């Protein structure tokens, strides 16, 4: 890839033959530097004996494999609960914020802004330590409160992004408020919101690892057990090398799914008009991980 991508940029012209030669030179030089860095890291790994057989032997044991699988299962369980509950909470809060009754609107706005402004971990610790809830419900509750309020904002912008005429037409046909919302606005909004919703679920999936900090027996916790409690010359780095790709891979898969849905929708003329911005940058008290 020595020539620039065909997409036009404000930064530089499409390079000519001389510039292309220069870029090739830069490319070779920077590749050399990157390879040297990677090589140095691999040398460090070998130098500190990370690839000796006894550091990797634990992973052959059935008990260890089962421990890791159970951890992974617990991670997915927490994610599933958190995802379903935060979607539900998000829907409720969004409807509340769009309500015509002022007290309901104010209460929901207050809740949404407060939960978005708090660090998730503080909420999880509060529920776990002060309310003395078990680890899994505490983790799920914390994740639900945070992601639910972020999703509420996504839902609200999605509903508001539907063309005004749709609502007016539905009212003109004699539909009630609830009917307008459920039959006309929500179906159109959901389609436009889907990529943003999935991206927010990636945040929830990533945050399930916070369970490690309140001793919920999830994936990272299983890794910690193997790395510290068992006496196999502390295979800490191998544990990180096994766990990280699985964690990162799961999140990447979900992220790619979101991008794929978004790209598919951009081609769809029916959703072209309605675009929902990413969930992260909020207005008043933005949140996001």
């Amino acid at each position, binding site marked *: 890839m020595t020539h620039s991508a065909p997409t036009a*940029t*404000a930064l530089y012209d499409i390079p000519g033959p001389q510039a292309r030669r220069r870029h090739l030179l*830069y490319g070779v030089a920077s590749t050399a530097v990157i390879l040297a860095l990677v090589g140095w890291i691999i040398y460090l790994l070998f130098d*500190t004996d990370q690839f000796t057989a006894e550091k990797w032997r634990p992973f052959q044991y059935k008990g260890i494999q089962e421990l890791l699988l159970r951890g992974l299962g617990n991670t997915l369980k927490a994610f599933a609960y958190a995802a379903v509950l935060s979607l539900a909470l998000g829907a409720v809060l969004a409807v509340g914020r769009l309500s015509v009754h002022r007290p309901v609107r104010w209460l929901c706005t207050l809740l949404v802004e407060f939960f978005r402004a708090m660090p998730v971990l503080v909420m999880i*610790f509060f529920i776990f*330590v002060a309310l003395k809830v078990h680890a899994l419900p505490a983790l799920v509750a914390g994740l639900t409160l945070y992601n639910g309020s972020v999703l509420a904002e996504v839902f609200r912008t999605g509903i508001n992004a539907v063309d005004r005429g749709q609502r007016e037409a539905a009212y003109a046909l004699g539909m009630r408020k609830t009917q307008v919302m459920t039959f006309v606005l929500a179906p159109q909004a959901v389609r436009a919101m889907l990529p943003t919703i999935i991206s927010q679920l990636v945040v929830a999936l990533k*945050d399930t690892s916070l369970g490690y900090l309140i001793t919920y027996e999830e994936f990272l916790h299983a890794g910690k057990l193997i790395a510290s409690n068992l006496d196999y010359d502390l295979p800490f780095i191998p544990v990180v090398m096994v766990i990280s790709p699985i964690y990162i891979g799961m999140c990447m898969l979900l992220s790619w799914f979101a991008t794929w849905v978004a790209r598919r929708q951009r081609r769809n003329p029916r959703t072209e008009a309605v675009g929902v911005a990413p969930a992260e*940058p909020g207005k008043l*008290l933005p949140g*996001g991980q």
Partner: protein
Amino acid sequence: MDVLTENFSLYGKGFLGTVELTVYSSALALALGFVMASFRVAPVGSLRVLGTVWVTVLRNTPLTLLFFAVLLGLPRFGLVLPFQLFAVLALGCYTSAFICEVLRSGINTVPTGQGEAARSLGMTFGQTLGTVVLPQAFRSVIPPVGSTLIALAKNSAIAGAFSVTELLGTYRTLNELGYSIIWTFIWIAVGYLIITLTISALFNVMEKRWGVAR
């Protein structure tokens, strides 16, 4: 109320710890994010690949896993630093991926014609970048950079769970001393609100002064 007045120095230490962590990590994240963003828009292929890999991997890494790997893993390479420095490293690198994407989209909001006009006036690459493209990009990225840094301040709570001195970590001492847990947490929450609201206000002022008028 007693919890705060009787332990003011402890809270103060935790509060300052969070502020320090936020400031240092922000500096690292902005610097690294700027470097990675320039890699991602560079005409050199291998740098673009490096930037893309950096952003994709770090954005999909759970921060707890990163803290776990950096704070507990790097010492096993014989790299022993103060825990706070490790925390700054983890938090800064993680946030740099988000900063990079914000900056890159900021550069992309500048119309191609601007750069073409600058070049047709005979400006060099440095002049085009420094006097035409970056000033416009900067104006449009103020709000998203602000929300990224607020997220950073909130994420710094994780460092406390890894026994770095910061605000959330104070609950452990106060809990052992037998103070009311509810009030302990209320004051911790107030501390975080002060920090996030300050950043929010700061960026609002910056946006009013330099932001794009809409």
